[in-house]
């Protein structure tokens, strides 16, 4: 089975899981008392948000190893992860406002976490733009690694601002030092959806990785390059 095939298979499974999460969420999980049905978007929103950040960190890690090992596979992975991260950031940035409108009565608010997601999105855009602007593959990989590492280090700083700046956004419910404060049925659904999104991430990345392999092969194996 080719890599692209595998990727497509995993993505499919993941999408089925996401659908299942929603069936479960809509049919079997209690409606949250204060927020009503709008809270259902939670299962899409939160795992996507987590993976947006995780993907950036993986981009940075891949970059770090690339600088020492010079293995083009690491660079391909970083590229794939960044593109998938961008997609997830887009999901958060669309589901957030859709959720926020009924809850907060406004599409957007300058909550630190919302803003930090927005800037994470900008970070991804910048990263991909730099990749697009440098044509020499070696140089591109190196530059991307440098930017990726900086991006990885930026994520905690952006995160820190959440706790320093007053915020409208819900404080961490699940990922906090004390025990999660979520009804167990919601927690179970949420964990299931997290698994689904992990699969989705793996599936997307695999597909994207296969695509860049194919593109390089099509160029005759010789490293494609040009003036920077």
């Amino acid at each position, binding site marked *: 089975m080719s890599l692209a095939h595998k990727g497509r298979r995993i993505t499919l499974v993941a999408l089925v899981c996401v659908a299942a999460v929603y069936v479960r969420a809509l049919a079997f999980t209690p409606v949250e008392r204060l927020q009503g049905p709008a809270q259902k978007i939670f299962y899409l929103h939160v795992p996507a948000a987590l993976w947006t950040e995780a993907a950036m960190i993986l981009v940075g890690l891949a970059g770090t190893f690339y600088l020492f090992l010079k293995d083009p596979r690491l660079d391909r992975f970083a590229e794939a992860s960044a593109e998938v991260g961008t997609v997830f950031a887009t999901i958060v940035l669309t589901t957030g406002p859709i959720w926020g409108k009924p809850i907060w009565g406004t599409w957007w608010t300058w909550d630190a976490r919302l803003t930090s997601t927005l800037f994470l999105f900008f970070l991804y855009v910048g990263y991909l*733009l730099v990749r697009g602007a440098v044509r020499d593959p070696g140089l591109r990989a190196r*530059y991307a690694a*440098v930017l990726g590492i*900086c991006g990885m280090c930026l994520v905690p700083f*952006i995160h820190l*601002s959440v706790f320093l*700046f007053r915020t409208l956004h819900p404080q961490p419910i699940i990922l906090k030092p004390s025990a999660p404060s979520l009804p167990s049925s919601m927690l179970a659904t949420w964990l299931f959806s997290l698994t689904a999104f992990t699969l989705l991430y793996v599936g997307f990345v695999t597909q994207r990785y296969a695509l860049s392999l194919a593109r390089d092969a099509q160029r005759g194996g010789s490293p494609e390059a040009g003036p*920077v």
Partner: protein
Amino acid sequence: MGELLVQAWTVARKDLVLEFRTRTALISAVVFTALVLTVFNFGRDPTAVPTIDLAPTILWVTFTFAAMLALNRAFQLELENQALEGLLVSPLSRTSLYWGKLIANLVFVAVVEGVGLPLFVLFFDVPVGRVLVPLIGVIALATLGFVAVGTLFSALVIRTRFAELLLVVILLPFLVPPLIGAVQVTARLLGGRPLSEAVGYLKLLAAYDIVFVSLASFLFRFTVDE
């Protein structure tokens, strides 16, 4: 190391001489500062919005702009007669290039800030007397961080087309933590609050500087071509 610093200083001095001789970017930055300050002064309704609430933001928007100007200028300058090509084929290490540009950028931004701050005090009539030293400290802290990152990135995009644009776009997210920190600390200072209230932000700023100055110092060698 000595050699590295000597070469860095050679590059920085050249930049500063050029800047001093043409003054374009410097005066533009100063005038822009004056412009922003003026506009804000006329724009706000003094009874509705107390000065103190606005001042920090205005100060930092201005300073950020000055820094962006400096960073752009830093490599624009190397494009005339393709001097950059000359630098890249010379034995100058990219490390020295980085430090040279960093020094020149910091001097440039410091000068703009040095002019901007009195203008700001004058126009907004904010009481900085008591807090001048900590204020300058915060300015230095925040400026160092983002100029260090910006200089690394400008070395990174320097050989791509649309370098200027790319720089703005990739630098944007990196400006957020130092800016938030700086604005918040400045607000506390001007509001006469005890510095202890701002300690979280000060830590944030210091951590940012430490992380990114060392990261940039470590990473620039990979923007070297060998």
